[in-house]
């Protein structure tokens, strides 16, 4: 009979969960030793898991296995990433860390291009297209939607999108002595945009509270269920 089948693992696991939960809730009183201890345990365990998952799912299948399975000229091409990866290990020794800089420059270049591509292809064009498509009357009629309501909603979204975009305008024309400020029409449009932004933040904020509340409820209910099962056990 292994320890696991006896339920001892559940008992110890439950006690462990209860202890760390109480230690984290002690943060309400202020920074204390138990809270710091649990944070350090958490950082260590999380790092351990991530290293194993990344090793299983990235380093082994994409870096090591191609080199072991390649032969002939393929080995050269499959070995290049391994060579540059070994250069990166020079970061562990300050004196030779400069050897890793070319690979870091490559990562920064590719990352920047992915950021630009992601922004243009994934955000700017789709969001602009989605706002324009709100006025596609044919599609609205196909979905038996109320056309007027759809146009009203579309107009509100159009005004909101343009005004919240205008809110971020940074440049101001300096008038001598006058307070540097945007033109009046732009200032008014920005005020409207700020309203839309604040409404979006309010709804998201309420959603975050709901998610956090659910986590708090899950903790409280697992504690009460565990204590209840302990009491019921004796």
């Amino acid at each position, binding site marked *: 009979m292994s320890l696991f089948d006896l339920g001892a693992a559940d008992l*110890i696991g439950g006690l462990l969960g209860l202890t760390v939960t109480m230690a984290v809730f002690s943060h309400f009183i202020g920074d204390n030793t138990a809270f710091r201890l649990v944070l350090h345990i958490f950082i260590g365990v999380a790092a351990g898991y991530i290293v194993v998952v990344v090793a299983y799912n990235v380093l082994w299948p994409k*870096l090591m296995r191609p080199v072991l399975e390649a032969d002939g000229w393929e080995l050269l091409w499959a070995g290049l990433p391994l060579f540059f990866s070994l250069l990166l290990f020079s970061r562990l020794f300050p004196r030779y860390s400069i050897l890793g800089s070319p690979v870091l420059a490559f990562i920064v270049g*590719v990352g920047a291009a992915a950021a630009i591509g992601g922004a243009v292809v994934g955000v700017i064009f789709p969001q602009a297209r989605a706002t324009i498509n709100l006025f596609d009357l044919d599609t609205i009629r196909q979905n038996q939607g109320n056309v007027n309501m759809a146009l009203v909603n579309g107009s509100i*979204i159009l005004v909101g999108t343009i005004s919240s975009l205008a809110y971020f305008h940074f440049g101001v024309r300096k008038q001598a002595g006058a307070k540097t400020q945007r033109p009046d029409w732009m200032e008014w449009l920005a005020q409207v945009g700020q309203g839309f932004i604040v409404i979006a*933040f309010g709804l998201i904020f309420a959603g975050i509270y709901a998610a956090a509340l659910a986590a708090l409820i899950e903790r409280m209910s697992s504690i009460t269920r565990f204590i209840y099962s302990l009491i019921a056990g004796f």
Partner: protein
Amino acid sequence: MKSNPFVYLLVAIAIASGATVLVGYFFPSLAGIKGEMLDWAVIFTAVLLLIGVISLVRTHWRKIMQDQKDRAYSLVLIISFTTTLLVAVLSGPTSKWSMWLYNNLIIPIESSLLGILAVFLIYACARLFNQRMNFYTLVFIGTVLLAMLGWLTIPGVELEGFKDFRDWLSSVWAVAGVRGIMLGVGLGTVAAGLRILIGADRPYGG
């Protein structure tokens, strides 16, 4: 730009690799090279993660060796890291014992952290007038209350109207604000990326 020739090499690598990948986004014929370079970047990022963990553990190990303050915490961190690593490697990341550690340490701690966040969020919201007393704070708090009423069920109180108004607010007004923010953030991201590709910003030590 400093006169160090090595810096020119770094800038050349960053610009060449970035331009190749960017062109791959718009010319499908070059998508293959783009995919290969993105794959390399993924591999190097994973290797960096491994090196990062090694330097994290080394930093805490040094704290212990140099008898610094809080060295007990560092010892606890190293022990928990090593234990998890051994359990996950020897029995597999989703084995019975790995999942035991995950279910009884990772989930309780993260859920509790998120739980104490709930209290802080309400406290911050209630104190917002102290921080910024203006019309937009009123709009913000009003929206938060409206969203909560939209989810609430109070026996004997008809809140359906709030629910519909909350759904309309969410699908029209919030969407407009979110789009404006995302377009602005998109412009900022493109500018940040372009500065790297024209060599104006050189975070790689250039």
